């Protein structure tokens, strides 16, 4: 037998699998049993099979550290993360609540701005945000939905409480890995998957297509939907082509589209064909050189005009970046109370705003104990993890924050929960987060689970793929019918 867990340390964290050393939580017991009977050789075989599957399918991301743009597979850990039905049901309700409030916030901000007038959020937080688009004040988006696709990062603290770390309301990526990870688990652990009743994730693409069709201009019944990619050298290109393929829609680059007379067309072998809905995986800044960045070669000149004329719909809408600004994030619980009159179900991580005087003082004094983040960045860029940073790095950030307080926030270091992962020939606890994908069309639908990212370096809290992160399949269990199962 492989004895995979003999030296496993639960540590001073919330462990997803073990309630105490050697004592698996009830929803992990079948998995624990399965690993007890498995030998090393079998496990190695499964690992090889998984890796070769990803490689031959080209499930890769591009690393830009040399001139060739090396393709790497996103490391995949074979131990799934399992979440019981009841627990997920709560998370789901919390996410629905949050996306509903964020959408109401966006509508309000681009119309009457009641939330600012009522002093719930300071005016300058919004007006000074880099991703606020005053050009779109009083513009009505199709079906009144702003964020059609949202990826919300969740973490769990020491007690296992789910917290929202950030919302990704622009072009969140990672969902293709959720689906590919499941495919791989089906090939490597078919019987274990059969023993659990795991909710499927495959219909995400269909749900996404439903959302995109729902927002078509003039409620057109058979709209032409396309996915706009920055191109084959973008690090998420695999995902773009994966989604286009599984929705059966065209994947286009900016040069394939042309805007004329307030309409958008794609250049086809049979001439120009009108496009109704664009799922764009290009940020606002690069979308239209006539309106935003003039130097963008990725976008489509005139697409914004067509959007304004109501002849083409965009997902996500322009200007949603204000909703995932990290300073605005601080106010989301207040938004939920303001718009919905409810208490937030999923709490935020406590956040200090450098633009607030007392907070700034606190941040400058405690920088080595805090995580400092630039408000507009994502993907692990522009941030400092105080406890893991050198004195010089801390000092440099202190200067940056002082110089431009609006641009920074800080949070205490949350001891993220850990899940057993196979590292250096044995199972070891590694920190994880979870990014569920939320779709907002006629109704809100959430993929059961999401992408569990895992920081594979011992002790690391950074789960981003560019920083040595990997992923796991996430199993959301069906509601149990029997009385003795589950938690």
């Amino acid at each position, binding site marked *: 037998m492989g004895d995979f867990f003999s030296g496993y340390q639960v540590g001073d964290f919330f462990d997803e699998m073990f309630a105490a050393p050697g004592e698996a939580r009830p929803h992990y017991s079948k998995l624990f049993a399965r690993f007890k009977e498995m030998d090393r050789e079998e496990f190695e075989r499964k690992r090889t099979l998984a890796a070769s599957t990803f490689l*031959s399918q*080209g499930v890769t991301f591009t690393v830009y550290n040399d001139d060739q743009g090396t393709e790497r597979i996103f490391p995949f850990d074979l131990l799934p993360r399992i979440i019981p039905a009841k627990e997920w049901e709560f998370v789901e309700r919390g996410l629905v609540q949050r996306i509903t409030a964020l959408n109401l916030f966006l509508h309000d901000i681009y119309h009457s701005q009641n939330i600012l007038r009522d002093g719930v959020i300071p005016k300058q937080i919004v007006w000074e945000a880099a991703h606020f688009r005053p050009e779109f004040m009083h513009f009505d988006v199709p079906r009144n939905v702003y964020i059609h696709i949202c990826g919300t990062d969740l973490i769990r603290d020491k007690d296992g409480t789910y917290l929202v770390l950030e919302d990704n309301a622009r072009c969140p990526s990672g969902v293709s890995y959720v689906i590919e990870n499941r495919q791989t688990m089906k090939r490597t652990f078919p019987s274990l998957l059969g023993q659990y009743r795991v909710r499927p994730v495959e219909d995400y693409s269909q749900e996404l297509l439903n959302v995109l069709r729902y927002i078509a201009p003039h409620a057109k019944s058979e709209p032409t939907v396309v996915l706009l990619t920055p191109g*084959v050298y973008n690090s998420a*290109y695999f995902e773009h*082509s994966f989604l286009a393929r599984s929705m059966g829609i065209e994947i286009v680059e900016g040069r394939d589209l042309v805007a004329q007379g307030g309409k958008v067309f794609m*250049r086809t*072998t049979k001439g120009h064909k009108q496009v109704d809905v664009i799922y764009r995986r290009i940020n606002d800044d690069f979308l239209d050189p006539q309106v935003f960045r003039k130097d963008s070669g990725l976008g489509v000149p005139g697409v914004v005009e067509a959007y304004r004329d109501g002849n083409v719909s965009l997902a996500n809408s322009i200007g949603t970046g204000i909703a995932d600004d990290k300073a605005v994030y601080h106010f989301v619980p207040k938004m939920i109370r303001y718009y919905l009159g409810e208490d937030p179900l999923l709490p935020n991580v406590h956040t200090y705003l450098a633009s607030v005087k007392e907070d700034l003082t606190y941040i400058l004094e405690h920088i080595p104990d805090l995580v400092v983040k630039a408000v507009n960045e994502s993907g692990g860029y522009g941030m400092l993890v105080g406890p893991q940073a050198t004195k010089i790095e801390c000092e440099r950030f202190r200067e940056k924050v002082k110089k431009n307080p609006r641009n920074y926030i800080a949070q205490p270091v949350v001891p993220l929960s850990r899940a057993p992962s196979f590292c250096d020939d044995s199972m070891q606890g590694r920190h994880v987060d979870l990014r569920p994908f939320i779709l907002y069309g006629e109704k809100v639908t959430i993929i059961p689970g999401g992408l569990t990212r895992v920081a594979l370096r011992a002790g690391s809290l950074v789960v981003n793929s560019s920083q040595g992160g990997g992923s796991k399949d996430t199993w959301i269990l069906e509601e149990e019918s029997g009385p003795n199962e589950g938690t």
Partner: protein
Amino acid sequence: MLSRVADSLYWMSRYIERAENNARIADVNLQMLLDLTNQREADPNQQWDPIVSSLEENELFDSLYPTPDGKAVIDFVSLQKKNPNSIYSCLTRARENARTTSEQISSEMWEQINRLYLFVKSDTAKKLVRTSPYEFFKRIIAGSHLFQGITDATMTHGEAWDFIHIGKLLERADCTSRILDIKYHILLPSGEKVGGVIDTIQWMSVLKSCSALEAYRKIYVGQVAPWRVAEFIIMHSGFPRSIRFSVDCFDASLHHISGSDEANFANEAERLSGRLRSDLAYITIGDIFKFGLHEYLERIQDRLAAISRALHETYCANSELETITMD
């Protein structure tokens, strides 16, 4: 479908076919070399020159290899990154084109082309080329066949498939003409007679390069004669690697795309292709030899290139293309 995508599918298919044909030529010459070393007076090195010539990269070859022996040619044809027509380069470009169109082709096709690409990039491939080039070439040819089979079996035979089909057959017609032309470049060792043993071996190797020896034998009994080989490879209407067969098939696909009937033409590509098709149907091998085989084959290559340009003009030129091509 998108113009850019049509162009990429067409080139993806051409590059795979080109990789296969390069493997065929190298493989057969490798075998021929073994036959010839048993013959006195034959200079083995000379045997490889025509291959390099057929790739039209003589200068590059000379600059890369001080001693132009069999090893050098095998390296040049198989894994040399600097050679834009090496098997490595062709498959890299085929895969790049496939990547930009991977939502159009079936996932099985994508996986196959990706596997083939990963293979030529691997250490296994490097080792095989060094120790057993025969196996390397076999794997490339089999990999290309698998891709073509998967394409026909898993993809809707619609517009996108037609562009792939045209790319494959146009490239095949071009490569077949070059394979046949190799014989033109091969000089018979002094003292050897036309129709002698070495001459026959060389003509047989031309047939083998096109997988045509067995098919040829079924039709022509007895001596392998040059004009018969040329006739078979250029004009046979049913052999899938003959020039005529390839042209017939891509002509049909061209009409399939535009919807026009085969007796007419709807665009310049169809006009040129129809003309070439009827020439191949009505010409005789006597006419060809009178004209000069080498000259005739060169004209075929020019006409194929003109069809390729016209195809691009008709369907793809309305987008600013930066597809990975290197014609």
